């Protein structure tokens, strides 16, 4: 790989160009490396403050990776495609770590562009990785990846794209559009993670059957899905679709419990209030959907509508704003799903019910169906791709 602009690139870890060679997927030393990483993240006192780092540490433990590998190993002989370029999103600190892990576990060498902002948890993780790589048994791992940073530059991005075998482009539509302009080798594979829209679907009759404690736990999970990233992650639910067969009081109960949790846990300030009201006003102009805005304070803003249309993804809900629609039967979901739909977090019915609707109607949206509380659990299957499978080369026989 020839990198003309290498001087403008800050190498955080590893070296560029990459010296290593692809290996088979889930190669032993790499699985061990991630296990070592898992142990060291857990041990590190500074990691404790960052739940996202801790979650990654837990995810990359050996037991989990071995379990993951079982989905792939029996089938075919698979090895990495070669060099993979990862463009991490600038606002989700730990996303790069998963992207990196998928690249490594699929047997590739990896160039990872870190977020431009300095996140403490990234710094800690890099220190831990650097320490592990000094151990003799992991020394060779350092040949297999490189973490870099650079200020947005067409020249560098285009140089980096010129000779890779696959690219993982996170960071939404604008970043993807940019990267698609650069020349890549004809066989290069792009996995693009565009702007997405996610919803929750809740059956009220089932919610009514929960005990008070269970209900509180449930709402807490919903809170984590929505408020933890200011409701700005692509899998954060922006709308709640109530499958509402009879009593509606349960819905108010839900909002009251959520309000208590938000009041205790979510810091709001004038700037959030300003952004929130601006976004609602923008959505009001941009869509033809009629909605009614309801809030007792700005902690939770509910945008209620009877318009069941795929246009709902145009109502941008962040910082604790929710579009709300009541439907009678789960089958009505098909009327509002668009391509942009990523995750459906659900409660009160089986995921197979939703799967059936997707299959039966040939719906082009919805790539993930997970229970409420697991919106942000990232895995190798994301946005409709199996990332590890796609990054591997299968040798047919």
């Amino acid at each position, binding site marked *: 790989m020839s990198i003309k602009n290498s001087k403008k690139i800050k190498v955080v870890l590893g070296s560029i160009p990459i010296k290593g060679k692809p290996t088979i997927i889930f190669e032993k030393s790499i699985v061990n490396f991630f296990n070592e990483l898992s142990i060291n993240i857990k041990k590190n006192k500074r990691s404790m403050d960052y739940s996202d780092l801790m979650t990654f540490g837990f995810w990359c433990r050996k037991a989990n990776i071995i379990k993951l590998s079982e989905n792939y190993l029996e089938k075919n002989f698979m090895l990495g495609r070669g060099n993979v370029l990862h463009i991490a999103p600038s*606002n989700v600190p730990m996303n790069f770590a998963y992207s990196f892990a998928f690249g490594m576990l699929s047997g590739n060498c990896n160039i990872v562009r870190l977020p431009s902002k300095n996140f403490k948890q990234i710094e800690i993780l890099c220190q831990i990785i650097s320490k592990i790589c000094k151990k003799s048994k992991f020394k060779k791992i350092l040949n297999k990846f490189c973490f870099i940073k650079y200020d947005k530059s067409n020249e560098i991005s285009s140089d980096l794209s010129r000779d890779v075998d696959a690219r993982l482009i996170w960071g*939404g539509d604008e970043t993807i559009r940019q990267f698609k302009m650069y020349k890549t080798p004809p066989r290069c594979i792009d996995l693009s993670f565009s702007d997405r829209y996610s919803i929750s679907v809740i059956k009220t009759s089932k919610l009514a059957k929960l005990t008070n404690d269970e209900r509180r736990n449930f709402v807490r999970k919903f809170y984590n899905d929505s408020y933890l990233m200011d409701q*700005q992650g692509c899998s954060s639910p922006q709308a709640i679709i109530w499958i509402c067969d009879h009593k509606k009081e349960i819905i108010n109960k839900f909002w009251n419990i959520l309000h208590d949790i938000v009041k205790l846990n979510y810091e709001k300030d*004038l700037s959030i*209030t300003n952004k929130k*009201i*601006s976004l609602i006003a*923008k959505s*009001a102009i941009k869509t033809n959907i009629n909605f009614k805005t309801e809030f007792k*304070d700005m902690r939770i803003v509910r945008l209620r509508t009877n318009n069941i249309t795929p246009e709902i993804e145009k109502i941008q809900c962040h910082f604790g704003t929710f579009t709300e629609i009541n439907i009678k039967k789960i089958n009505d979901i098909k009327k509002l799903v668009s391509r942009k739909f990523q995750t459906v977090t659900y409660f009160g019915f089986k995921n197979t019910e939703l799967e059936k609707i997707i299959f039966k109607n040939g719906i082009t949206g919805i790539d993930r169906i997970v229970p409420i509380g697991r919106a942000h659990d990232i895995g190798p299957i994301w946005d409709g791709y199996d990332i590890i499978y796609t990054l591997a080369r299968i040798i047919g026989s």
Partner: protein
Amino acid sequence: MLDYKNIFSINPFSLNQKEKEKWYYNQQKILTAYHYKNCKEYRKITNKIYGSLKRSKNITDLPFIPTNLFKDFNLVTDTKYDFSKTLTSSGTSGYKNAKINLDRKTSLLQSKALSNIFSDILNKKKGTMFVVDSPAVFSGSNLLNARGAAIKGFSQLVDKSVFLLDKKMNLKINILTDFINSNKNEQFIIFGFTSFIWQHLVKKVMKNSFKLPANNGILIHGGGWKKMHDQSVNRNVFNYNIKKKLGIKKIHNYYGMVEQTGSIFLECEHGFFHSSIFSDLIVRDANLNVSPLKKEGLLQILSLLPLSYPGHNILTEDIGTLEGIDDCRCGRKGKYFSVKGRVLGTELRGCSDVN
């Protein structure tokens, strides 16, 4: 429509809040209904966020819109008058600029209001104004940025206006010294954006250890303190140096924005901004409830002037405090307040890089 003839006949700072409030609310109600009827976007926002128009009991219930909408949308209220110009904010690079569509009527109201507000501190209309800016600010088209709009507006208050900077932003201080030397006791105005006055006038005068002779100048400046605070210059430092180096005794800051040109808030001798008959102010907390006196919040500002765009009631991105009502030591009636600055941007999170 509003009875502007009557409005312009009242001294802009003479009404106490109680006298003003009910009248002002009714004027705003008329204006709100007007924009609701004639601006599609305003109607959409009102219907979807506020339910409808009918529910208001007092001025705080009337639908307002966030200022940054003017950056994303071209908001126009249908008018029978011709459009005369489009104003843009002098936004910091990298940010979108606001776009304000002015018809002749609104334009005229704005300059009349500005003149009325300033008649309060300028004892006569005629005189010379020195503008701390460059003639390059006028591009020649009907697109006018906030600086240009302010200069145009203030130029109408005087007989003659003279630029103190050339096209390359070099200071031509001799114009000013010559004027003072040959018109010893004459009142004149120095006008400019706060950061321009500091950067291109005060700092240059200080650097050359130069001093203007004693004079009858009045300095009027606006545009905000953000750039000044970046250089650790506050109001005291600013005013002190102007008095000392430029020999000017009267300094008036004003608070205003391109969305409400004309109905600016004038700073009094005691350092507070005053609402005039054309404007009103509401401070709101993080829940958008009305904040009590002395409590910081988002500034919502109202104006009776905008007719060709829905800018009569806007929520700004500025933080400020309502300091008092009717009882400022300067004697002006109505609400007075202070401005702290922009709301700090919260860190944007999420998967998408463009926000």
